[in-house]
C-alpha cells in the first residue's frame, strides 16, 4: 500500500523526524523519464511557466493546468512516489510532454507548494485502490513445476559434467577458445530453464581477454559453479533459507506477490547508488540500499528493454522511510519496496571502516558463497594510489582498491581530503557511486 499524505490521514509515526522539505528532482532525472528524445524535446518546449496555471506541489505530487492548442487546458498530475502520471491530453506517449514539462518547471523551482485540487486527489485515491486490490493470478499447474524441476536437474548435471571436462583437459586452452565454447553450454542451460547458471557461464567468456590474471579468475568462477551444482543436487539436505539461496542462483524465481507476503523490514534506507547494465536485450538497473538503523543491505532490481525508461523512483543519495520485502534466502539481499512512509530526505549516510566492510562481506559470504556484489559505505576515506591503481584509504590507513576508471569527480570534489563514499563492493574492488562531502553535500558519481 502506498502511503501518501495528500490522501491518507497523516498517520506516520515518525514523519516529523524529517524536515518536510520538498526534495525537487534534478533536470536530468526528469528528462530521464522521457520515452524517447523527441518527447524530451517536446517537454522542454512545454516547460514554460507562462503556459501553466493553477500549479502546485506537495511531498508526493505535482499538478497544474497546461494551455494546449485548443480552448480548454489539460489537467496534468504526477504522483512522485512511483512516479505515475495523469494528463487529460490525447497523447499516446507515456509520460506525455505535459507531465514532463510540468516536472521540468517544478525542477526549476517555478512551482509553489499547495493543496491538491479535487481532480488530483480523486486520481490519487483511485490509484491507491488499484494498488491495494490484490492481483489474482491463476495457480500454477503442479505438473508444469515438476517438468521444470526435471529440466533444471538435467541442466545442472550437464553443467557439472562440462566443468569437470574443462578441468580434466586443462584450462590452458581457454585463452584461445572462441566465445562459442561458453555460449554453447549457456544456451543449453537456458533451454533447461536454469537462467541463473546460464548468466554466470556467459559472463565467464570474457575473462580470458581481461588480463594476465585470467587463469585464477576462471578457476575461481568454475569452482564456485561446481559448488553450486553440488549444492543444488543436495538441496534436500540444506536448511530452507540456504536452499532458497541455491535455487535463486540456479535460476528459480520467486513471484513478487510471495515476496510481498513475506518478511518486511522498515527502516530509513540510504540509496547508495544505481547502476545500469545491459545483457541479452534487457537493461537491468541495480539500486543499492542500506538501512540506517538496522544496517541491513538491500538490492532493488528493475528491468526494461533498451531505450525504455527504467524505474526512476529510487534516486541516489536520498534516504527513504520505507518497508522493504526481501526475497527469501540465507543472506537476504534482493528486495522490493513494499511500502513508502514519506518523501525522501537528504542526510549523510552511516558508514563503516575498511575493516568493517571486509568483515561484513566475509560474514555474508559464509551465508551465500555465490554473492558477488555488496553495498558499501565507507566513512572518512581519502583517495590514494598503490601500484598505479586508485584506492580509498580510511582513517586507520586500511585501503581497498577501486574498480573502473579513475574517479575524477570524486577526486575533484574531495580535493584529496576525507569524504564518505558509497558504492558497490566486489572481489575486484569498489565501484564508487555516491559521496557525501562536508560542504558540498551529496555528489552522485
Amino acid at each position, binding site marked *: 500500500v502506498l502511503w501518501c499524505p495528500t490522501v491518507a490521514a497523516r498517520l506516520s509515526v515518525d514523519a516529523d523526524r524529517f524536515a518536510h522539505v520538498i526534495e525537487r528532482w534534478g*533536470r536530468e532525472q526528469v528528462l530521464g523519464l522521457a520515452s524517447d528524445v523527441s518527447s524530451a524535446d517536446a517537454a522542454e518546449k512545454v516547460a514554460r511557466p507562462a503556459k501553466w496555471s493553477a500549479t502546485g506541489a506537495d511531498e508526493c505530487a505535482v499538478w497544474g493546468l497546461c494551455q494546449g492548442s485548443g480552448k480548454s487546458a489539460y489537467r496534468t498530475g504526477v504522483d512522485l512516489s512511483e512516479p505515475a502520471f495523469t494528463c487529460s491530453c490525447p497523447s499516446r506517449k507515456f509520460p506525455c510532454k505535459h507531465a514532463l514539462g510540468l516536472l521540468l518547471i517544478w525542477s526549476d523551482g517555478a512551482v509553489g507548494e499547495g493543496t491538491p485540487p479535487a481532480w488530483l486527489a480523486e486520481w490519487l485515491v483511485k490509484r491507491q485502490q488499484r494498488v491495494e486490490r490484490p492481483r489474482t493470478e491463476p495457480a500454477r499447474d503442479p505438473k508444469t513445476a515438476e517438468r521444470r524441476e526435471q529440466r533444471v536437474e538435467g541442466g545442472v548435471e550437464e553443467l557439472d559434467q562440462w566443468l569437470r571436462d*574443462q578441468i580434466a583437459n586443462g584450462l590452458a586452452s581457454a585463452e584461445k577458445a572462441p566465445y562459442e565454447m561458453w555460449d554453447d553450454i549457456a544456451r543449453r542451460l537456458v533451454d533447461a530453464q536454469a537462467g541463473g547458471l546460464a548468466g554466470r557461464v556467459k559472463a565467464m567468456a570474457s575473462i580470458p581477454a581481461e588480463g594476465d590474471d585470467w587463469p585464477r579468475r576462471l578457476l575461481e568462477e568454475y569452482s564456485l559453479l561446481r559448488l553450486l551444482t553440488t549444492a543444488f543436487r543436495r538441496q534436500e539436505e540444506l536448511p530452507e533459507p540456504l536452499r532458497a539461496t541455491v535455487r535463486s542462483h540456479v535460476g528459480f524465481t520467486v513471484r513478487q506477490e510471495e515476496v510481498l507476503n513475506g518478511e518486511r523490514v522498515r527502516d530509513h534506507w540510504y540509496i547508495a547508488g544505481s547502476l545500469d547494465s545491459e545483457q541479452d536485450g534487457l537493461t537491468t538497473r541495480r539500486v543499492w540500499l542500506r538501512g540506517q538503523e538496522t544496517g541491513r543491505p538491500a538490492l532493488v532490481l528493475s528491468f526494461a528493454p533498451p531505450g525504455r525508461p527504467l524505474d526512476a523512483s529510487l534516486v541516489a543519495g536520498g534516504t527513504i522511510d520505507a518497508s522493504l520485502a526481501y526475497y527469501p534466502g540465507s543472506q537476504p539481499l534482493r528486495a522490493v519496496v513494499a511500502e513508502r512512509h514519506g518523501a525522501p530526505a537528504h542526510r549523510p549516510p552511516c558508514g563503516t571502516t575498511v575493516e568493517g566492510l571486509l568483515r561484513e562481506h566475509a560474514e555474508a559470504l559464509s551465508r551465500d558463497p555465490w554473492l558477488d556484489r555488496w553495498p558499501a559505505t565507507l566513512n572518512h576515506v581519502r583517495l590514494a594510489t598503490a601500484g598505479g591503481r586508485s584506492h580509498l584509504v580510511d582513517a586507520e590507513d586500511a585501503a581497498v582498491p577501486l574498480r573502473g576508471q579513475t574517479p575524477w569527480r570524486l577526486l575533484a570534489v574531495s580535493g584529496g581530503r576525507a569524504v564518505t563514499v558509497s558504492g558497490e563492493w566486489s572481489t575486484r574492488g569498489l565501484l564508487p557511486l555516491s559521496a557525501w562531502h562536508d560542504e558540498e553535500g551529496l555528489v552522485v558519481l
Partner: protein
Amino acid sequence: VNTWGEHLTTALLGTRRRAVPDLPEGASGGGDPAGRLLDQAAFLTLRRRAGRPGGRAEPIAPAPAETAPIVGPPAARRLRQILGGEHGRLLPEWLEAAARSGLRVPPRSLPELLDKGRADRALRPAIARAAGRRGVWLAMRNIDWAYLVAAGDGDAAQDPEHWETGTRIQRAAHLTWLRAADPARAVATLRTTWATDSAPDRTLFLGTFEKGLSAGDEEFLEAALDDRGQDVRRIAADLLARLPNSAYGRRMADRARTCLRIVRPDAAPDTIDVHPPDDHDEAMRRDGIPFHAVERIGTRAGWLREILARAPLPIWAEILGRTPAEIVRMPVADHDARTALDVHLGWARAAVRQRDPEWARGLLNADVLLGGSEIEILAGLLNVLPAGERDREAATVIGRIGNGPRPELITLLGSVPGPWAGALAGAVIAALSAGARVPPSQGLPGPHTDLTELCRLADERLSPATAPQVDEIAQEHPGTRALTDLARTLRFRRDMLTELSA
C-alpha cells in the same frame, strides 16, 4: 608451498596430466579428480575472499586551500545544464560572469569542464579564470587537462626554457607573455633566434607585436619589411601603418600628399581633387602596397586606397585645413563614379587601423560609406567608438539600412561584438519585430532566412535585459521557431547572469 598455486597449475594442465594436490582441510576425497580439484578450489577461493585483509596505499596530497567562494546552487545547477549540452554555446559567458564576480566552478563539475577545454582551445582562458586552484590541482593529475596547468598561473609560459627548447606554440606563448610584461625585452628575445627561425615561426612570432605596439618596435619592424617571408613582410607593414610618427608613416604621408589636393572651382565649395599615383615602384611594394589590389578595381585605384589606408590621419587636417568631420563632408571631384568611395574607404580603413574615434565618428555621421560591399567597414568604424556611443551610432546606421532584417544588417551586426545594449538593442528588436511580420516564403532565401540568421546572431550578443520584449514578439508570432528559441536563450542568459552577479 603455495596451495592455491598448485591447484591453479593442475587446473591449467588438466587433471588427466597431473595429480590433484592434497588439501587436508578439503572435502572428502570421493568423486573423480576433476570434481575433487574444483571442490578444493572452491574452498580455497572462499577462504581467500572471506579472509581478504585491507591493503595499503599512499594518499594523494590534498589540494591547496581556495580563496574564491563557489557559485551558489542555482548557478551550479545551470552550469551542469550547460555542460550537459543545453545552451552549450553560453559556457564562455557563464565562466566569464563567474570570474567577474570572483566565484569559482563547483568542484563536482570540473571534470566535464576540463574535458570541454581539451577540445576547444578558445575556452581555456575562461576556464583558467573560473576553475580555481582546485582546477589546476586536478589538471595536474590528468594529461588531457595539462593545458590548464600552463594557463593557470602562466608559470610554464614564463619559463625562458620554453623559448629556447619548446615547440612553436610554447615559444609563441612565452613571447606573448613577455610582450605583455616587457615589450622591449620581447623584441630582444625575438632577435636572439630571428635569423634562424623558419618563415612560419617568424610569422607567428611577429603576430605577438599586436599587443603593446610602440615606437620602440619601429626599428625591428622596418628591418622586417625586407624579410624573406611574404607574410612576415605583410604583418610588418600593417603594424608600421599603426605607428603614425614612424619613418614608414612619413613615407606614406609623402605619397598621400601627392594624391589629394584642394581645388577651388568658381562659385562652388572647396573640392578635393584626386590624383592616384601614376606608377608603382619597389619602395611602394616594400611598404605593403601590392601591384594588384585584392579587390577587383583598377590598379591605380587600388594603390590610392592602400596609400590612404596607411597614411597617418593627422596629416589631412594640415593639408586640407579642416577638422575630420568637415573633411569627410567635402565634395570629391569625380574622375569616375568610384573615386569618392576610394577616398572615403581609404580613410575608413586608416581610422580602424589607427583606432581614431574622431575620424570614425566623422565618417559615420557623414554617411559616405553605404553600399553592399563596404558594410563591414562600418562595423569596423563602430568598434572604434566607446561602448555607449557605439550602440547609439550603430542604431543610426541600422536606421539608414532600413527596416527589417536585411542581408546588409546581418553582415553589419556579424562584425559588431556583444553585448548589444541601449539604442542598438532597440534597433535590433525593431528589426526582429519587422521581420516577424513578413509571411514566410516557402523555403526560399528571403526575409525569413534573414530573420533566422539575425536571431542566431542576437542570441549570444543581445543584452539579456531585452528578454521581456523579445518574449512579447515571440508570443505574437508563435510559429516562428527562431524567435521562440531566441526568447528562450535570452531568458536563460538573464537568469544565468542574475545567479552569477556578486
